[in-house]
């Protein structure tokens, strides 16, 4: 059992607080990805779990044991570092076997275990090389082998893929996923890359400025972002956020230029007449007039061809918006054209706190949109 319980953990450097009382429970065998922009405290949190940073407040327990005052070696974690942190003066075999050597395991057993790990990571032909003679991907594998050999309860990954080129990154991502399936060790993976986070995570944790913004399965976080920060941080291109005001009837949001966007009534929740932020993902906007005649228009300036679709860049209600269109409607630039929002995919956020309004997803209204599309 190696679940990790993080209770109101804080980190300060002098007077600067970088982690503000974080709570998080990670279940045994779970793959959790901590995602956030640079400086959000995600690496610091990971390093506090590892024991490389002192914990300023709160407590961290691994497998039910509070580890605040334990040395890294007593915590049973293995870590893969961003720059690999391989020992340059040792061969690949010595790098991988170093932990066993310290643990006082005999030469013969050490060699056998290094051999089996090397086979698992596909480096059995490179055991005598120095790290300096390896490519980036091979070094990354050595770093993973070094973590694996101790059969740790917990794997910690500190942006391990960010030094690799795009193709290798995809490949190593798959290997990490495989590794996790095979070993089923609790894993905490820190990254600023949302694709890595979405693809690897059982659950992802979005952090911002030392706080956790949202915890959830990747699809939940994508479909129901808890705040405007999460909404704009996840998704590429990011969600369009439009300032507006709920109409008195609670059936529309009025944008800055007076256009009305129909919203499912469930979202209104007594906020009639109040300002709100309306969110809509680029792929939930499409060309063409809305069925009910409540036509929205936007003006587009240019498009980016993606192959699998096209990104239209333009303005709506004085705000820049992006539409990801998959149809082949001939583009019209410079004049107002009809567009439609998928009402089941609208998000509303509080203007002041940025928090999501109407906790329930609009997903229940999915049918409505399908019918809506059919009639359009």
């Amino acid at each position, binding site marked *: 059992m190696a679940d990790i319980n993080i209770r109101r953990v804080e980190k300060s450097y002098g007077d600067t607080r970088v982690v503000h009382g974080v709570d998080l429970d990670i279940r045994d065998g779970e793959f959790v990805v901590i995602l956030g922009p640079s400086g959000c405290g995600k690496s610091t949190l990971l390093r506090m779990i590892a024991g490389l940073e002192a914990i300023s407040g709160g407590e961290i327990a691994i497998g039910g044991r509070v580890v605040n005052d334990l040395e890294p070696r007593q915590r049973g974690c293995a870590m893969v570092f961003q720059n690999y942190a391989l020992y*340059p003066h040792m061969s690949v075999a010595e790098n991988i076997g170093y932990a066993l050597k310290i643990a006082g395991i005999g030469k013969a057993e050490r060699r056998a275990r290094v051999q089996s790990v090397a086979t698992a990571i596909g480096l059995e032909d490179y055991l005598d090389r120095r790290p300096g003679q390896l490519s980036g991907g091979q070094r990354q594998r050595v770093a993973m082998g070094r973590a694996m050999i101790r059969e740790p309860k917990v794997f910690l990954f500190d942006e391990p893929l960010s030094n690799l080129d795009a193709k290798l990154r995809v490949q190593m991502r798959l290997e990490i996923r495989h590794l996790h399936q095979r070993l089923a060790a609790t894993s905490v993976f820190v990254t600023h890359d949302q694709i890595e986070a979405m693809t690897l995570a059982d659950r992802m944790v979005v952090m911002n400025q030392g706080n956790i913004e949202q915890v959830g399965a990747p699809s939940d976080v994508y479909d129901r972002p808890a705040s405007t920060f999460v909404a704009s941080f996840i998704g590429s291109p990011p969600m369009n956020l439009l300032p507006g005001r709920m109409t008195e009837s609670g059936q529309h949001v009025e944008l800055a230029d007076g256009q009305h966007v129909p919203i499912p009534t469930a979202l209104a929740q007594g906020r009639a007449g109040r300002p709100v932020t309306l969110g809509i993902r680029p792929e939930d906007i499409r060309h063409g007039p809305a069925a009910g005649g409540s036509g929205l228009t936007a003006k587009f300036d240019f498009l980016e061809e993606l192959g699998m679709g096209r990104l239209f860049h333009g303005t709506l209600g004085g705000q820049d918006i992006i539409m990801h269109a998959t149809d082949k409607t001939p583009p019209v630039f410079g004049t107002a054209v009809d567009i439609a929002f998928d009402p089941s995919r609208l998000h509303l956020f509080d203007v002041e706190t940025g928090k999501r309004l109407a906790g329930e997803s609009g997903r229940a209204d999915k049918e409505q949109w399908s019918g809506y599309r059919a009639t359009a």
Partner: protein
Amino acid sequence: MRRAYFKNNWIAAALVAPQLLIIFVFFYWPTAQALYWAFTLEQPWGGGNQWVGLENFQAIVEDEYYWNSVMVSIIFAFFSTLLSMGMALVLAIAADRQLNGYKFYRVGLIWPYAVAAPAVGLAFRFIFNPSAGLLSHLNQIWPGIWDPIMNGDHALAMVIFAGAWKQVAYNFIFFLAGLQAIPRSLTEASAMDGAGVLRRVRDIQLPLLAPTAFFLLVINITDSFTDSFGIVDTMTAGGPARATDLMVFKIYEDGFRGLDYSGAAAQSIILMLLVMVLTFFQFRYIERRVHYT
């Protein structure tokens, strides 16, 4: 690789001329003069000389005091280098671990390097004085246990300590820079692998410091042969009974006190060759062990 170059060569020449001139006047010219003197017999008060070939060298080689001086110099070089690099390494590792107050002693440890050798010698003469210094208390308990004035071994130990102390600062700077150039993630990785502090020093930091240590070894050995005059002159003047008669001090004694310019010049040439040979051997046999990439 293409380099930037001056079209007007005379500008380049003019720019390097002052430096070349200084090196020539204060290095090559005296060296050449010493080389010439080493093969002549020079009159002590000037007024001509006489070509004697290798006679000066022959006299030196046959002089048992000279061989004593070589032996003393080698002992001094070995132990002062060992001691100063050892102390500097311990201090640098402590400073690198950022123990309490490291900012203060990091600066404090660099200062001794700025102190001139004779000043160091004078200070240690007081500290090691057998009747009034710090160690005089030992003499009160066991009379005669510390006697650098009469006992040659004590005197040499004292000179070695003072010489090492002066070099500690220099070595400390380089060791600390070397330690700080080791990525922190390496020590962190070894901590995660289960290594304690001492184990990390032994397995990670020391091997990665090897190039720095090699550089310091060459510099320290060279320095201890050529730059130890001030300490000996102020502390022991080569005594007692030539127990601290380092080669560089003997050159001064023979040349400027004994007025044997030719013999001193020949000794200088030998010292220079000795340092060159030592440096060559260090590069030949140690350097290739220290590079790990």
